[in-house]
């Protein structure tokens, strides 16, 4: 839409989300400016993934407003489509299409959703595969790649849609330790280029060095948000302190 600097790219106002009688999100207020890098952390079941999944309507919120680049998310399919064109997503389990080659994984949505020609799609796909440093894997199937490589492909696939925002849902949680850094490196590069990013992650080193703001969630609420230095060195909430003690104890 327009490049109105005063308006946040993502605006969540008093958002509630229920799964049956379980309340997954409570009264979420969140604003994200263009180019901001947000890390969301918190114990499992705290609603981190649900929050970002509401942003591209993989989950439907039950109350409140979510406005993405001026488009409010309602049941209107055109609006949902419009938001999804602006928001890319990277999943914990990569979710590459197993029956398509790597390059086809990167081309399919360009062709179907953006109506890009086959040649143009392939060109862009190869460009992003080079950016994540695995162009030589283009004609393989996902199962033939390591987890780290698959996740880099998944990031490239999201980038091929040229989104304004990328959501990362625990992108390194399913990876063997030696593969985590190759994925984080790609994410750090993206952050440097000014991509608006929201990452649900337990990688506190990444959070400290890359995030503009860290959000701590517990029991469906945003408990605390702060810049990394303040967040790690001087957490205000008791719950945040307990969480940090737990994950940083080793």
């Amino acid at each position: 839409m327009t490049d109105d600097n005063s308006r946040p790219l993502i605006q969540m106002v008093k958002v509630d989300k229920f799964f049956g009688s379980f309340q997954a999100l409570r009264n979420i207020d969140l604003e994200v400016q263009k180019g901001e890098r947000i890390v969301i952390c918190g114990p499992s079941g705290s609603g981190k993934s649900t929050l970002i999944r509401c942003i591209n309507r993989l989950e439907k919120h039950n109350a409140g407003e979510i406005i993405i680049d001026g488009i409010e998310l309602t049941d209107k399919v055109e609006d949902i489509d419009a938001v999804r064109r602006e928001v890319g997503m990277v999943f914990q389990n990569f979710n590459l299409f197993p029956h398509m080659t790597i390059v086809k994984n990167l081309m399919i949505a360009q062709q179907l959703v953006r109506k890009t020609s086959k040649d143009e799609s392939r060109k862009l796909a190869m460009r992003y595969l080079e950016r994540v440093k695995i162009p030589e894997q283009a004609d393989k199937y996902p199962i033939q790649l390591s987890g780290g490589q698959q996740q880099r492909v998944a990031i490239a696939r999201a980038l091929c849609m040229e989104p304004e925002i990328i959501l990362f849902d625990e992108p390194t949680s399913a990876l063997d330790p030696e593969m985590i850094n190759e994925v984080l490196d790609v994410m750090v590069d993206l952050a440097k280029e000014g991509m608006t990013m929201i990452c649900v992650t337990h990688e506190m080193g990444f959070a400290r060095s890359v995030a503009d703001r860290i959000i701590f969630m517990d029991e469906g609420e945003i408990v605390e948000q702060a810049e990394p230095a303040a967040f790690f060195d001087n957490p205000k909430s008791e719950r945040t302190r307990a969480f940090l003690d737990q994950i940083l104890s080793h």
Partner: protein
Amino acid sequence: MSFDLNLILDSLPKMLAGFGVTLQLLVVSGLLGLILAILLLLMRLSGKFYLDWVAQVYIYIFRGTPILVQIFIIYYGLPQFEAVRDSVFWSILREPTGCAILALTLNTGAYVSEILRGGVLGVDKGLLEAGSALGMSARQKFIYITTPLATRLALPAYSNDVISLLKSTALASTITITDMTGIARTIVADTYAPYEVFISLAIVYMIFTFGIQKLFGVFERYLGRYARREE
């Protein structure tokens, strides 16, 4: 008890003369049944309760009754109705082959639609979410993600159903059709040698089944090419 080898050698070629009829029953009702199965599947997945409900009742009826009874109802029962005799379908229904194909089609369609549904339900939800996140529409996801993956998942059970259908075609012999089983029964009536004739008939079906298994093995390897790490 004696075992007459010459009788086998004598009757084998005669039974094989019915191979074409058996093959026709299998292929025609198999293909029509697959189309019916896809229609039923789409009805079940439509999200419209009335379509879903109609498909469920249909499937329940055809899975809940013996195929032999279905053949008898169609062959002996339908011509009782004048409306059927006056309809355009009469040219098909007055022939026993038409009745057999209809019964086999209706029956296999019910089973196969459930097999396909199993395949659809087996597709990883995360892949469909990835499709949504990329902006793909429900139809695009169904065509480009669900269909190819569900096909691969459903194939082993589907090949089982095709083999089962092959053997159901033998029931057509009960309504005067001269498929391989029909011919075998005639030979037995003439020679009073059920042992030799039916054993050789059984072997012919086994060879046929072997061919179907091999064919589906090729399909499975082709559709599963992406699930192998080597190459």
